[in-house]
């Protein structure tokens, strides 16, 4: 087991040695079906869509649960999808935001070689940073794909009736959505996560600063990987305070970084019993008892 400390969170990673001892009651319900692009290639087929998992979604224990929730929904809706698996590499977003254009472009070009090698047309990401980078910044380097965020995929699946939500466990619960900067302001996607959550029959509440005025969680621009500069408060504390002022049952998020930041914020206020921080995908999966 590896323990990685960084200032925002402690990420505990289970590596191979203790794999077998890990049992997750939630995941044992139905085995996840996660085909890779290589599997499809071997069969001479191609999937509807590639699921770009992202580094958090692959390695961070909390974010892995979001990844699984997305896969459960994809499985449930019979979406023909594939992951790149070991062929996926960091999109390069943190390098680009930190000013390391060299490293970013190296990452991007390697990923583009893989994606173009498989003739990928459509990608769904589990992270707004990967989403923004692949959608907007890969084209200049030769990577042209239709890229959507997982909340947009959920919206499509609901609209086309491939998944439905009936009643569900969030009926009447108070939920507030924290806009990820790179989904909201970065790409003007505000409605997809909200229109998905409307189906939960929950009471959706908006924070004072929401949508285009949403306050950052504090993790973007590679801040996730460093100590914050000197100040009088942490950004995630400021943001969590605002969310908690609404007395929500759930703070909904659409980004693994926001998830970490808001979870830490909730812990800071000792509210982790009352208030859950959940990704929109987890809400949908749980409502459907997946």
């Amino acid at each position, binding site marked *: 087991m590896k323990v990685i400390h960084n200032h925002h969170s402690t990420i505990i990673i289970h590596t191979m040695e203790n794999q077998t001892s890990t049992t997750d009651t939630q995941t044992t319900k139905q085995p996840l079906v996660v085909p890779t692009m290589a599997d499809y290639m071997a069969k001479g087929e191609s999937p509807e869509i590639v699921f770009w998992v992202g580094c958090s979604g692959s*390695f961070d224990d909390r974010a892995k649960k979001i990844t699984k929730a997305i896969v459960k929904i994809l499985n449930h809706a019979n979406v023909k999808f594939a992951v790149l698996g070991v062929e996926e590499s960091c999109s390069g977003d943190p390098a680009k935001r930190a000013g390391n254009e060299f490293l970013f472009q190296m990452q991007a070009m390697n990923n583009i070689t893989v994606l173009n090698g498989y003739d990928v047309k459509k990608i769904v990401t589990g992270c707004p940073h990967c989403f923004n980078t692949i959608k907007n910044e890969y084209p200049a380097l030769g990577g042209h794909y239709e890229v959507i965020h997982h909340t947009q995929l959920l919206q499509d699946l609901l609209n086309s009736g491939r998944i439905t939500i009936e009643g569900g466990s969030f009926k009447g619960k108070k939920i507030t959505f924290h806009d990820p900067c790179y989904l909201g302001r970065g790409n003007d996607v505000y409605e997809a996560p909200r229109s998905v959550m409307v189906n939960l029959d929950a009471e959706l509440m908006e924070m004072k600063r929401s949508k285009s005025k949403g306050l950052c969680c504090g993790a973007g621009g590679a801040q996730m990987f460093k100590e914050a500069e000197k100040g009088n408060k942490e950004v995630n504390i400021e943001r969590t305070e605002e969310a908690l002022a609404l007395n929500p049952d759930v703070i909904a998020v659409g980004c693994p970084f926001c998830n970490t930041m808001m979870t830490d914020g909730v812990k800071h206020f000792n509210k982790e019993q009352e208030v859950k921080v959940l990704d929109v995908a987890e809400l949908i999966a749980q409502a459907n008892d997946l």
Partner: protein
Amino acid sequence: MITSILFILLLAAGTTLFTINVRKVRRNILLGKETERKDQPGMRWKTMARVALGQSKMVTRPIPAILHIFVYVGFVIINIEVIDMFVDGIFGTHRFLSFTGGLYNILVATFEILAFLTTFGCAVFLIRRNIVHVKRLVSKDLTGWPRTDANAILITEILLMTAFFTMNACDALLFNMGSHHYNVAFANPVSHYLMPLFSGMQEGTLIFIERFCWWFHIIGIISFLNYLPYSKHFHILLAFPNVYFSNLKKKGEFTNLESVTNEVKAIMDPSFMPPPADPNVQMRFGAKDVTDLSWKQLLDAYTCTECGRCTSACPANITGKLLSPRKIMMSTRDRLEEVGKNIDANKGEFKDDGKSLLNDYITPEELWACTSCNACVQECPVNIDPLSIIIDMRRFLVMEQSAAPTELNMMFTNMENNGAPWQFSPSDRLNWTKE
């Protein structure tokens, strides 16, 4: 006759000086690097109509938005009145536009009402700055000259409007007296109330006051015009081109560094031949000084109104960090002005002054506090992009100086070795499927 000559000389001097200063600003802006902002003209005109002319981004704060509309519309419309004054000044006519007959009544009445709203707006703005102390308007970004600048603009506008009312009040009294030359009747719904203050005065005194106010107003306007290039008030002109040339792409998309692309391609494919570099352009990754920025970023700096909407939405600033996107823009303008003066003093050549935008004006501590959240870009009423400057300067720190914070260097190393920002083996990427 003498007054006409005097007026023409004054006008000529005022416009010449203004032209010289604007050309200097233009030259300074063009010190910036090329960037493509001329595509999609239709979309650009639309954006300009909406954001600059229609002030669509102001409405999120309704009170200052309404007051600003008063001052803005007032100021623009009253400039029609200046045409009246200019023609009178040159040809010695009196209220030249009165040939429009009944329309003239409507014109002057409109001017007066707008002038009143402008005065009202400016007064409330002064109160907000100096008595109510609205947070973003008393920030330490504005210590010294910027605060004086803001107050000077507001007070000048109030004085100009007061002179306008006084002039009209005296003119109306002189008309009532049947004074020679003052032979135009006009509606004066506002200055009407000032008339009792001056009634009973001698004809000569009234003429003196009226003339004094006329000259005060006209000299004031010409001086004000020449004050613009030194002031945040320059935005009344630059807002339009600045919004026209604004970034039409998604805000999340950062610029692609072509120079880096060529190098990376050469590494990945040894047969790749990068296009020959322009020997006149100093090759540098990222921005150390204003001349490394694009002309649009420099235009941004001159356009900034110092309103602080960006800073008041900035998560770093809200939580007490040193970073303030407004200050990023103000520093860029200050440094650019300094570079411009250096060029003027050295016969058109920039002489190294051992200073740069980085460190002397903007510190790494400010740059590293940014979360790249785009709140500043979103809030700016004139589509300024402080974030792009921050990122360009980070690029210089990282790629030219290897001066990233240690933790970020560790992140880079992880990404290089493992394809992830953390220390995980790439072969473990699918472990989650088995857990």
